[in-house]
């Protein structure tokens, strides 16, 4: 025998060895290790998601603001979609054959999968659904999944309510609750209270046999979870006031915020121009969203009530008057002269014609620029301070305590902090130590670098109405049947000015309406409105018309700020609008239909558009 033939034993040995290794490996994988069996079980089961209805949103009087409507998503498992009569199918759906092929391709390819359901047609109309439902048994692999989408019966408060949309990838990666295709609140209340509103998705585990036919629930539903419907929310909004305010702001650009000073509940927050919230629902959402984005001057998606910085104008004099009293550099009987302007700086800032000198009460009522320039500088330039900067820091600290220049942590997303310049800001702008109280004297009358949102202005009025404190403005009244409002909303936030100093200012504000610049706000003799007009200069065109107020004087129920962009004097537009809203809220009727008509029909929007275009 050829000695080489001995080598067959080596080769046979290798074959036997490999067979043995494989047999052992198979024994380990198939018999010993349970890991793979569990995995396989997971795959033979179908996990179906039950989407709960989203919670409704009510206004403070129990009126429905947001409800649901059913949307029908047509789903497909491409692998199972066989022998589809595409002609009939496409006609039912009203799509072309090309579009069918394209949608099918999308459903098949990553991130979708041919063996998992993906959306074929989003949010079919009820008619399409009805027609399709009769014949869907013919189209294997297709099924309809119902979802709830939003509907807004009154078409109001788009910015407050916000909208929902599909989750983005960042969210699905961050939060395991969400999966691709789920809806989530993107702005407004929908975003803040997403966790209450969304409810809890349910899962049904269904066993499927080899023919992919469901064979009932897995272990009698032992592992199923029921979908929990979202809880309804009661918001603090007064739908009537909100709607009325939106009507008054028709054809105007600006923002309104109204707060119940006794609770901090936001009664209305209007940003004009707005839009019909129903536009951002359903299939048309993205195209409508695009259209809204195109209005770059009106910027309807921008929530001016919370995000727009306006110079507060004369309304800011109230704060300076309060701070000066607290610092004991101003007393009710203090008098300062006015020469159609601040005489110390050669008549700047300028003022209108009125008797001179005035005391504090008169100065508030007459809105004297000179008086408050003296006042402001007397705070900053006190002898106890080593520098102007130190004085300014003290002043700024007071101002911040009114909830401006910082976030007040309301529950609406997108709230901005406003702008009260830091000393560092001026150092950078003018040079360190190169600025004095005279340099920044425009702060005395609410001009200069100040930027305050309408919500913050209304909040200042809350502090005035409460004579020294405010509650954090918020939009949530209760969740479900229980009252579930965060404790922090019922805590008083005190300003750094004592209660006793408020009285004279409140008296002054009352005189503004009873005999001063805001006379037009008065609607009857028994309701005492305390207000302050403002005419805010700005670089974008005509002055902004500003009015802040609260009413009634004793036991105030509403604090309000109205700002109409480039409209002119505060008394001219903002004041009557605020007055009408106050009247509507307090009495539920309007006694001045003429004024109402004039306000509603006034078209001030062109002033903004034309000026802004010129400005560019």
């Amino acid at each position, binding site marked *: 025998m050829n000695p*080489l*033939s001995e*080598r*067959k034993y*080596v*080769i*046979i040995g290798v*074959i*036997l060895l*490999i*067979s043995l*290794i*494989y*047999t052992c*490996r*198979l*024994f380990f*994988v*198939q*018999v010993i*290790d349970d*890991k*793979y*069996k569990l*995995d*396989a*079980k997971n*795959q*033979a089961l179908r996990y179906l998601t039950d989407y709960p209805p989203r919670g409704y949103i009510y206004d403070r009087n129990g009126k429905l603001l947001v409800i649901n409507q059913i949307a029908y998503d047509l789903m497909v498992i491409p*692998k199972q979609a*066989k*022998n589809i009569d595409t002609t009939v199918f496409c006609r039912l759906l009203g799509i072309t054959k090309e579009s069918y092929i394209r949608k099918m391709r999308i459903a098949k390819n*990553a*991130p979708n*999968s*041919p*063996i998992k359901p993906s959306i074929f047609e989003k949010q079919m109309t009820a008619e399409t659904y009805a027609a399709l439902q009769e014949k869907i048994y013919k189209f294997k692999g297709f099924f309809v999944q119902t979802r709830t989408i939003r509907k807004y019966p009154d078409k109001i408060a788009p910015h407050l309510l916000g909208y929902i949309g599909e989750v983005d990838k960042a969210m699905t990666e961050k939060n395991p609750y969400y999966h691709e295709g789920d809806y989530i609140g993107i702005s407004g209340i929908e975003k803040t209270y997403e966790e209450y509103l969304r409810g809890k998705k349910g899962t049904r585990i269904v066993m*499927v*046999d*080899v*023919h*992919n036919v469901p064979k009932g629930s897995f272990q009698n539903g032992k592992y199923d979870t029921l979908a929990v419907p979202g809880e309804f929310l009661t918001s603090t909004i007064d739908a009537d006031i909100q709607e009325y305010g939106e009507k008054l702001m028709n054809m105007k650009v600006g923002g309104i915020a109204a707060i119940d000073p006794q609770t901090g509940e936001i009664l209305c927050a209007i940003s004009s121009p707005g839009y019909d919230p129903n536009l951002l629902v359903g299939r048309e959402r993205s195209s409508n969203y695009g259209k809204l984005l195109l209005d770059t001057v009106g910027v309807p998606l921008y929530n001016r009530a919370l995000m727009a910085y306006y110079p507060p104008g004369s309304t800011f004099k109230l704060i300076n008057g309060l701070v000066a009293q607290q610092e004991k550099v101003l007393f009710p009987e203090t008098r300062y002269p006015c020469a159609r302007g601040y005489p110390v700086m050669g008549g700047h800032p300028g003022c209108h014609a009125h008797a001179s000198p005035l005391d504090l009460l008169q100065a508030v009522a007459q809105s004297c620029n000179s008086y408050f320039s003296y006042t402001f500088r007397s705070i900053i330039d006190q002898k106890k301070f080593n520098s102007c900067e130190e004085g300014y820091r003290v002043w700024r600290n007071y101002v911040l305590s009114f909830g401006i220049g910082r976030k007040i942590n309301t529950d609406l997303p997108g709230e901005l902090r406003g702008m009260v310049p830091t000393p560092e800001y001026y150092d950078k702008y003018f040079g360190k130590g190169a600025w004095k109280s005279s340099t920044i004297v425009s702060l005395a009358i609410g001009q200069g670098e100040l930027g305050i949102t309408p919500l913050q202005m209304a909040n200042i009025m809350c502090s005035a109405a409460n004579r020294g404190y405010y509650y954090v403005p918020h939009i949530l009244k209760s969740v479900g049947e229980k009252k579930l409002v965060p404790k922090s909303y019922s805590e008083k936030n005190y300003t750094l000015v004592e209660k006793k100093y408020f009285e004279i200012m409140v008296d002054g504000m009352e005189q503004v309406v009873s005999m001063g610049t805001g006379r037009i706000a008065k609607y009857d003799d028994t309701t005492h409105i305390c207000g302050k007009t403002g005419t805010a200069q700005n670089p974008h065109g005509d002055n902004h018309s500003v009015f802040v107020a609260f009413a009634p004087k004793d036991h105030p129920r509403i604090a309000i700020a109205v700002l109409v962009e480039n409209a002119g004097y505060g008394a001219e537009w903002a004041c009557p609008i605020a007055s009408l809203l106050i009247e509507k809220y307090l009495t539920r009727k309007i006694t001045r239909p003429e004024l109402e008509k004039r306000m509603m029909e006034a078209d001030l929007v062109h002033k903004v558009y034309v000026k802004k275009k010129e400005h560019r």
Partner: protein
Amino acid sequence: MRRPETTSIFSNIDWITVLTWLVMLILGWCNVYSAVYDEDHPAILDFSQKYGKQLIWIGTGILIAFLLLIIDAEFHPTFAWIIYGVSMVSLVAVMFFGREVAGSKSWFRFGDFGIQPAEFAKFATCLALAKYLSDINIKMSETKPRLISFAIVIFPTLLIILEKETGCAIVLLVLILVLYREGLPGSLLLLAMGMAFLFFASLVYPSMTLVIICGSLALLVIIFTRKRLRTFINVLTAFLVVVCIIFSAKMVFEHFPAHQKKRIGVYLGIESGKKDKEWNENESIIAIGSGGFAGKGFLQGTQTKYDFVPAQETDFIFCTVGEEWGWLGSTFIVGLFAFLLIRIIFLAERQRSAFSRIYGYGVASILFFHVLVNIGMTVRLIPVIGIPLPFFSYGGSSLWGFTILLFIFIKLDSQRLMILR
């Protein structure tokens, strides 16, 4: 030359092998049926479905087997070079006239059916190798025949690599086992395997570590085989080759086709497979594992049915075996292959003519490599290399190719008393 006293062409045929082959075809078809089973097309003879087509392949395969038994055994050594030549020409031709499938141009298309010349290159190469090595003047101890037999194998291998069918190409390299049987020193065989191992090791481990390890090994060999200059030169050469492999491995790997790179990368743990939705290397072992001891039963597998396993009816047909027939079924199949391989080696050893013996070893080697790699990759002992499981995987070319490979040998064996040249 003495002709055996026979009247029938079927006399002297090794029926055990033929029967094993038939059992494999039947079992294979059952599993293909189960893997692509579709309730819409339950009819066995539905030729729009893969199991219907597979029936055609099996039928024609049996016909081919029959024809091969009719053809006289003399035909094969006589035409070995011509068959080899034709096969090489078809490998080249397909690159120009073939249909492109999934990035590789290796198929001739005839309507619904396709032919892959690479499958037929296997028996052609075996024949050529057998023809060359059976020459009475060839001694495997010499360098020249080693180089020529190496060339016979490497030529089709390179052609198939050019077609981008890497998996199919490396199959031919297993013919080194034949050379070993015919006298190639075992040390060279070990060296070849060692270098292949080294290639993959250098993808994972730092180059310098490997160089140091190999260098110390070489040093040990030199020390223990003192004085012999020849060994010293050999070891030094081998070491230099090793160093080249270590430093070029990553570069060569970069030029692998993307999917191969991914699969090997995943296997070696240098690339994460988790985020890849197209390919989850776990699916195959999950399917097999879910079969348990006795399996889920015919048509009852859920994993393979829902396309959890890719290429379930071709390269991953063993998953269906594992899932539906469990450990018992899988072990039976492994055993069946071991039996067939050992049977072929047994038959090869009883040949009087070197041509038949060498060819027989070629058949055994190629079948062995396919079984080794195919089952190995489904149970994740080996990186995924897309080659079929002989007689089981769906596909006409592979079924025909393996049948021809085997039946030429069965015919040769039936005339084993003849001396073939």
